[in-house]
């Protein structure tokens, strides 16, 4: 039987009883079995749980007709807690952790009728841009298996790109939804800081982290975003704002929208093929009715160094909780007489190289004598970057850039040089530093690999972002990946 690829079609088929949720679920699990041996997008597939859930939905189908994601299979990044389903954040420290509670986003997905099929691979604690820093081995890019899917939400992006699931959740601290979306040729949205609850998200950089959707179309991304957005009393940083019906805004045109392009940032380090695809994307937005103008973001070129000071300071603080006392793995470093200190050192030796590197940088910039020079200074420059966007949004409605300066890179190519890896996020981190929503949409191919166009909007204006993403998607020459049967 042929199963629809998009969430909207799946829901419609289940609501009209053309296909049961169980049939959808079985076909999804079959596709995962077929492809994931090679791709390794999943760290855990919850076959029994997903089928039981689908059976319940079929039994209650009458009452589920209004549910926005009825019967839609979804994958969840493994740094988001799922009650009763292992949640490792791709770390040895949480290898056997099974959370006793679910993240708010997971509860909301269940209320919306979605079927969680499994947990996706990522860089350990979401720290990385290639999914190679997973303790359980890398994910491969479905477009070219010798290449990285990007990261840190590489498993979610690869699962959606390969058609294993129509939707996935990722998290984005410096580009971790948008960069893998770009490298895998799917749509990825980082919502405004505060828009989506982080209750149950394993913390990395708390002033930057957001959960968001990955999907094959802007319409599907909008449906998933609407299902998870909104105020949550369990997250004191979640904003009390109403969430517009983003689906209604997707009318296929971009008339009246002013899009600014900070051209100075494109002068160095952008691959020619990426540049060409980006310009074709801009032209398509022009045809959709948008006006394109040049703007300046004078401090945006400082985003990467500011980000790696701020994010790592927060990471070193957030990862201090992994002490082997209350949950997770405990390893005791054996001395003559074991003390508490021995379980700290023994347990924390389980961190991978990238997590250790970031804990070290963060600990250094927060340490006595260096705090003002590094951390406080970075937070001041962060204010200047925010101010640049405020100035820009006085003139334009949206800011466009390529999502990544390159197409998917080869596995192993960047792991030896952390700085080169960090530069993967050169165009994405500014939105996190400024708290702004941003989306990556496929805009073409370069060397037969996908290129993403990133659009950033004013706070809480995801509806305009998704509208312009949809307008681009309808006009641009991009065919989603078809995996061999």
């Amino acid at each position: 039987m042929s199963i629809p690829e998009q969430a909207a079609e799946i829901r419609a088929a289940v609501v009209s009883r053309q296909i049961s949720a169980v049939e959808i679920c079985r076909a999804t699990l079959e596709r995962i079995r077929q492809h994931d041996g090679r791709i390794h997008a999943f760290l855990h597939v919850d076959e029994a749980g997903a089928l039981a859930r689908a059976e319940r939905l079929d039994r209650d189908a009458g009452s589920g007709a209004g549910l926005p994601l009825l019967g839609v299979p979804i994958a969840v990044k493994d740094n988001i807690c799922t009650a009763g389903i292992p949640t490792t954040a791709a770390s040895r420290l949480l290898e056997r952790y099974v959370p006793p509670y679910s993240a708010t986003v997971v509860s909301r997905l269940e209320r919306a009728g979605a079927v969680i099929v499994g947990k996706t691979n990522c860089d350990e604690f979401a720290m990385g841009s290639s999914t190679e820093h997973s303790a359980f081995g890398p994910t491969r890019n479905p477009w070219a298996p010798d290449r990285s899917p990007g990261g840190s939400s590489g498993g979610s992006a690869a699962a959606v790109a390969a058609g294993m699931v129509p939707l996935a959740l990722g998290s984005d601290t410096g580009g971790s939804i948008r960069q893998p979306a770009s490298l895998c040729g799917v749509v990825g949205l980082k919502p405004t800081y505060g828009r989506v609850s982080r209750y149950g998200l394993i913390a990395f950089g708390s002033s930057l982290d957001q959960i968001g959707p990955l999907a094959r179309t802007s319409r599907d991304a909008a449906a998933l975003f609407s299902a998870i957005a909104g105020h949550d009393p369990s997250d004191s940083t979640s904003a009390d704002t109403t969430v517009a019906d983003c689906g209604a805004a997707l009318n296929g045109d971009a008339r009246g929208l002013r899009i600014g392009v900070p051209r100075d940032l494109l002068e160095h380090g952008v691959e020619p093929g990426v540049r060409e695809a980006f310009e074709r994307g801009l032209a398509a937005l022009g045809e959709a009715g948008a006006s394109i103008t040049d703007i300046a973001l004078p401090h945006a070129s400082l985003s990467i160094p500011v980000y790696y000071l701020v994010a790592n300071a927060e990471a070193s603080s957030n990862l201090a909780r992994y002490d082997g006392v209350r949950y997770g793995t405990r390893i005791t470093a054996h001395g003559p007489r074991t003390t508490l200190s021995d379980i700290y050192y023994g347990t924390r030796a389980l961190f991978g190289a990238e997590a250790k590197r970031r804990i070290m940088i963060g600990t250094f910039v927060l340490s006595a004598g260096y705090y003002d020079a590094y951390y406080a200074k970075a937070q001041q420059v962060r204010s200047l970057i925010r101010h640049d966007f405020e100035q820009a949004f006085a003139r334009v409605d949206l800011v466009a850039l390529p999502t990544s300066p390159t197409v998917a890179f080869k596995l192993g190519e960047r792991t030896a040089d952390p700085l080169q890896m960090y530069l993967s996020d050169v165009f994405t981190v500014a939105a996190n530093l400024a708290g702004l929503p941003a989306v990556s949409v496929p805009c073409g191919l370069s060397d037969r690999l996908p290129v993403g166009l990133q659009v950033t909007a004013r706070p809480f204006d995801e509806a305009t972002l998704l509208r312009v993403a949809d307008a681009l998607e309808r006009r641009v020459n991009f065919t989603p990946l078809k995996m061999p049967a």
Partner: protein
Amino acid sequence: MAETLTPADVSRIAALARLDLTPEEIALFAEQLTAILAYADQVQQVDTSGVALTTAGMSGSEPLRAARGDDLVPSLPRETLLEQAPDADRAAGVFKVPRVLGS
């Protein structure tokens, strides 16, 4: 001025973070952290006189809900949480750790 981190600096920072690094990791991190801090040096060059620090993910003008009421709400049962512990005394309701002080 860009900071050069020596292996001794790396060991000192590792102790603050309770990380037990191998000699190879110490040598590698001394080199890599120095390079990362040199790259971050461009932040030091920016004139930030009179610029406020960003202190939150959202600016003050955005809609943050007022603090929650001081109400009792149910939380996860103690037994459930102790089940996650590497070592616990369930009957006493406590996590267990080795002795805190050395000999």
